[in-house]
C-alpha cells in the first residue's frame, strides 16, 4: 500500500512550485508594484529549462540557473520599460507580457513544441532538491521582510513620497521588484518542468496569474507566511473537494469570493491583527499607556494661536 506521501507526491511538488510562483507575484506587490510578470517568467523559465535539458542535455541545476538568470534579465528589461506605470496600467501591461509569452509558446514551432509543448524533460532532479531550493528562496524572501530592508519595502509601498524623503530610491526598489519577480517566476517554472518532465501552452498563461494571485490574496499579501498559507490551501483544496464531485468548482469559487470580501488582508492579516489585539490587551493590563504624554495630546484646535488671534490682540506680542 502506498504511503500518504507517495500517493500525494504530485501535490507536494505543486505546493512548492506554486509557493514560488505566488512569491513571484507577492514580492512586487509588497513593494506597491502591481506586476503579474512573474507568471510570464514562469513560462519562460519552464520552456528554457526544458529546451536546455532536451537539446543541450543540461543538468537540472544548470537549467534552473540559466532559467533564473534569463528571467531576471528579462524582468530588468521589462522593468526599465514600464516601471513608471502604476496601478491598473502596470497590471495590464504585465498581463499583456504574460499573454505574449503564451502566444510565443504556441507559435514557437519545433523550439517550443507548438500547441503540444515539450515532453521528456528527464533529469535527476529530486524531491529533496526541490524542497531545499524552495526553502532557500523562502528564507531569502523572508529576510527581505525584516530589518532595514523590510522597513524600506513597507515605506516604498505605503508612502512613496515619505520613502523618497527618507533616502530611499523608488526607482531602485521598483526595478529590484521586477528582477526578483522574474527570477522567482523562472525558478518556479523551471522546477515545475523538471519534476513533471513536460510543459505545454495550457500550463502557462492567464490561469497562472489567477492561481498565484488567489494564493496571496487569500493567504495574505504582506508576508511570505501568507504565500505559504495560500499555496497550501489552493494546491490541496481541489483535491479535498473532489469528494463533493461536480460541486467542487462552485465551492472553490465561493471560498475565494468569501475570503476576498471578509478577509481583505488575507488569512495571515487576520492572524496579525489578532496578535496586535492580544499585545494591546496585555499591555493595557500590565503596562498602561504613558499617561502624561497621552493625556496631554488630546483633541485640540490646530488653529489655536493663529496669527489672526494675535493680530486682533496686539498685547500678546512682546
Amino acid at each position, binding site marked *: 500500500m502506498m504511503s500518504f506521501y507517495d500517493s500525494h507526491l504530485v501535490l507536494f511538488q505543486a505546493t512548492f512550485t506554486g509557493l514560488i510562483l505566488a512569491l513571484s507575484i507577492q514580492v512586487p506587490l509588497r513593494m506597491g508594484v502591481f506586476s503579474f510578470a512573474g507568471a510570464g517568467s514562469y513560462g519562460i523559465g519552464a520552456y528554457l529549462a526544458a529546451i536546455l535539458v532536451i537539446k543541450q542535455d543540461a543538468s537540472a541545476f544548470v537549467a534552473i540557473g540559466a532559467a533564473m538568470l534569463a528571467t531576471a534579465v528579462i524582468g530588468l528589461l521589462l522593468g526599465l520599460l514600464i516601471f513608471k506605470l502604476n496601478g491598473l496600467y502596470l497590471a495590464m501591461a504585465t498581463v499583456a507580457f504574460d499573454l505574449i509569452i503564451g502566444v510565443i509558446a504556441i507559435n514557437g514551432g519545433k523550439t517550443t513544441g507548438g500547441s503540444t509543448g515539450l515532453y521528456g524533460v528527464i533529469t535527476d532532479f529530486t524531491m529533496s532538491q526541490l524542497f531545499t531550493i524552495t526553502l532557500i528562496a523562502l528564507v531569502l524572501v523572508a529576510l527581505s521582510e525584516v530589518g532595514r530592508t523590510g522597513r524600506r519595502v513597507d515605506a516604498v509601498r505605503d508612502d512613496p513620497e515619505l520613502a523618497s524623503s527618507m*533616502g530611499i530610491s523608488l526607482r531602485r526598489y521598483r526595478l529590484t521588484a521586477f528582477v526578483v519577480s522574474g527570477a522567482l517566476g523562472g525558478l518556479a517554472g523551471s522546477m515545475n518542468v523538471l519534476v513533471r518532465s513536460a510543459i505545454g501552452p495550457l500550463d502557462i498563461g492567464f490561469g497562472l496569474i489567477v492561481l498565484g494571485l488567489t494564493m496571496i490574496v487569500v493567504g495574505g499579501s504582506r508576508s511570505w507566511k501568507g504565500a505559504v498559507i495560500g499555496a497550501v490551501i489552493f494546491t490541496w483544496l481541489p483535491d479535498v473537494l473532489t469528494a463533493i464531485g461536480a460541486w467542487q468548482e462552485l465551492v472553490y469559487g465561493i471560498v475565494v469570493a468569501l475570503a476576498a470580501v471578509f478577509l481583505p488582508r488575507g488569512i495571515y492579516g487576520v492572524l496579525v491583527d489578532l496578535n496586535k489585539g492580544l499585545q494591546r490587551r496585555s499591555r493595557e493590563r500590565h503596562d498602561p499607556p504613558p499617561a502624561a*504624554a497621552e493625556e*496631554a*495630546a*488630546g483633541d485640540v484646535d*490646530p488653529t489655536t494661536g493663529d496669527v489672526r488671534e494675535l*493680530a486682533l490682540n496686539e498685547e500678546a506680542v512682546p
Partner: protein
Amino acid sequence: MSAQPVEQTTTPVLELRDLAVHFGGVKAVDGISMKLMPGLIYGIIGPNGSGKSTLIGAITRLTRMTRGELLFDGASYEHVPPSRLAQLRVTRTFQTVRLLPDLNVRANIQIGADARTTSEQKAGRRPSWFERLRGPAASPGVADAIRRTRLEGFESYYPSEMSYGTQRRVEIARALAMDPRLLLLDEPTAGMNQSERAEISGLLRDLREEGLTQLLVEHDVQMMLDTCDYVFAMNSGQLIAEGEPDEVVRNPAVQEAYLGKKWGKDA
C-alpha cells in the same frame, strides 16, 4: 526689512534664488529668494494656500520646480533626486501625519536612522550585504530621538493606537533620528495642546543650540514668537515680509493677508 542675525559672509546652509513652482496657470510659489544661515530657526507664516507647503516640497525636491536655483552649503542641488537629499542630511516632516501603519513607533523612527550614514561608512568600511539587509541592530539615534520627544513607553505602540499629537511627535523623532543638518517642519504642532507646543518649542530651541538649522511652517504665532529667530511671511506664492518675528507679525501687509484688506485699513 531686518537684516538676518548672522553675518552674511558665512555660507548659508540653504539658499533659494528666484524659486518658482507653477501648476499650469496657478503660481503656487513665484520668485522666492531666501537664505538660511547655520544654527538658526527660521519660520514661514502665511494664510492657507499661500504656498508654504509647496515651498517645502520644492526645497526637498518632492515637488517639481518651474524655475530658480537651490543651493545647499553653496552647492547647487536642483537636479539631485529627492532620495539623495538624505545624504546631505536634509529631512522634513509633513503637514499631515505620515507614519507607516504596520510598523510600531520604534520601527517608524528607525526608518530615519536607517537613512543616516553609519559610523562604519564614514570610516570607509563598506558594510556586508547582510548588515545592509538587516540595518543596524540598535541605533543610538533612535533611543535619543525617543527620549528627546518624550516617547518613552510608546515604543511598541502602532500609529492607530496613539493620539494625533503623539503621532506628530513620532514624526519629529523620525526626522531627528536622521541626525539632520537642515530640518524642515511643516506645521509640527498641529493637533497638540499648548503645553505640548511649548515642549516642542523648547526641543527645537535645544536643537538650535546644538547647531541644527531649522525651517518651520506654522500657524501658531505664539510658537513662532517663542521659537524662531527670523520669519518669512508669504502670500499668493510670494514673500510679503521678512525679519524679526514680532516685526513680521505686526507688519500691516501680513495682517492684511490674514484678515483681508478692509481690516487692514480699519486697523
